[in-house]
């Protein structure tokens, strides 16, 4: 749990959001995240987000699935419980390929889904701070971290100048935590939001 202070700017158009994001970055502010109602193409590049290694993780999960399937089936059919059926040899590789394929896909899919959830900090039973109630409706919300070296007023004024409709300062948990949406956390109650 890391509770931090954020300056939150809400825009009502992505045409305003894009130059704002670029301006904020070039002025040296650190963008915590940008929340949009829909996927905005090119926003990740504008924010300077790097591509993740999710696909490499997927490849490794797939390899795990392949080796699990081939290893387990070959152990069963050649040493643990060898049975002859259909006149095939014990090590009947072609017959195992469909299951190997399915297990490869299963491992890769499930593994990548969980990794994706971890990277995006989403999971059932997990809570994240919502900066603006309309960030999933019609507002584009940018949160900027305010540290002790920064002036709150200056940051807010700067964000207002970039065309934000609403700007406020919030104290919020930066990460994710186990919690319930119908109950407020102590820090939320203390901060009054």
């Amino acid at each position, binding site marked *: 749990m890391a509770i931090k202070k954020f300056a939150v700017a809400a825009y009502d158009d992505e045409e305003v959001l894009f130059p704002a994001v670029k301006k904020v970055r070039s002025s040296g502010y650190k963008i915590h995240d940008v929340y949009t109602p829909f996927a905005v193409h090119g926003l990740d590049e504008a924010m300077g987000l790097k591509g993740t290694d999710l696909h*490499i993780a997927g490849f490794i999960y797939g390899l795990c699935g392949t080796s699990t399937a081939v290893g387990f089936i070959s152990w069963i059919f050649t040493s643990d419980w060898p049975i002859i059926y259909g006149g095939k040899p014990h090590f009947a590789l072609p*017959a195992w390929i*469909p299951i190997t394929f399915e297990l490869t896909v299963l491992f890769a899919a499930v593994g990548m889904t969980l990794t994706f959830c971890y990277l995006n900090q989403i999971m059932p039973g997990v809570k994240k701070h919502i900066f603006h109630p309309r960030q999933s409706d019609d507002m584009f919300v940018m949160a900027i971290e305010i540290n002790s070296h920064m002036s709150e007023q200056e940051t807010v004024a700067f964000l207002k100048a970039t065309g934000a409709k609403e700007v406020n300062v919030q104290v919020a948990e930066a990460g994710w935590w186990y919690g319930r949406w119908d109950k407020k956390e102590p820090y939320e109650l203390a901060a009054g939001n």
Partner: protein
Amino acid sequence: MNDRFEIPARLKNTSMFLIAVGVLTLIGGIACLLMGHNSTDVDKSRFWAVLLHDSVFFTMITGCCIFIQAAVALAQGSWLVAYRRVPEAIGANIWVFGGIATVVTFLIVFCYKDSHGINAIYPWVTPGNDKVLLGKAPFLNKGMFVGFTLVTVGLFTFFGNKFRSLSIAQESAPKNDTKIYWKVFRLSGLFLLVYGLTQMSTIPWLWIMSVQAHWYSTLFSWYTFASAFVSAFSLILLWVVYLKNQGNLELVNKEHIHDLGKFMFAFSIFWTYLWFAQYMLIWYSNQPDETFYFKMRQQGPYSIIFYANFIINFCMPILIIMSRPSKRNYFTVTFMAMVIIFGHWLDFFQMIMPGPLGENWHINWYEIGIFMGFAGIMIFCVSRTLSKASLVPANNLLLKEAVVHLS
């Protein structure tokens, strides 16, 4: 903008050289047959089988380029539009390869007989007392063969030229006029019907599967289609990269190359799926009338090609162009496109050769020379067609969408 393609002298000379090599090889092959005192039945079969192999391979790739245009038009896809003149130019030349394939297959069906009076390439032409072949005679006969071949090549030629001429007509049409767009849309639906009844079913049965007329596989046409499809995308990619290197196709960027790379990758896997599905069912049920096909290929004299086929067409694509950066790298995709075309050429080789040649197969001057000849014809014809019209499908309704397209 550099939207006209001037054929560079080097490309023209290369294509002329390749065609010359092909013609000389053909003359050499004929000379060996006529003057060789000890030319056996196998030598004659080899002469025809190699011609059949290359003409069918190139016809199927070319036909697939028409299919790609039709499928994309029907799906209202824009990703192809930035370089659509390339598949158009390849597809519009189907009459060349289809014509060669028609001549070759008809010569084999009507003229070729070995010293025992048997047609060693299409055994169903001379069934004798063979019960299996006589049972298949209602479909596998000369009339059906001629009919399907002529109808297929004729319709493909019509659609290949039609799609190109309509696309060029759009350039001079009024701006944002949708008349041609919907005409292409309707014709595409019609073409898919034609394609489904020809290249996706009957034509591979007649042209290729009937080389081993005793054997059959219900998956065969899909399998050859997958081969041709992935080769067609590789061919389109080679042309796109070549044109970009010449300074044309300025609207095409890495996103489009990435698209083509994805198709090459995905349909290599699709090919493997069909390759394995056909193999595994036959391996599992173990019926003698089906397994002899794979006995010869996997455990017999063709085992090198059988495994090379698997390594080149599955292992190499999956390992080399799986990752995103390698699909966006001009060198790796170009390299893999050449590898894939060669791999599927080998795939067609092992479909056709075991029937007529048995263990006496070669990949020697004759096979390579004829392949070079066909490659030369492809380069010559396609570059000539490309140079006749603008490379940018200006006024195409989807052009803007195609240019800002993100892969």
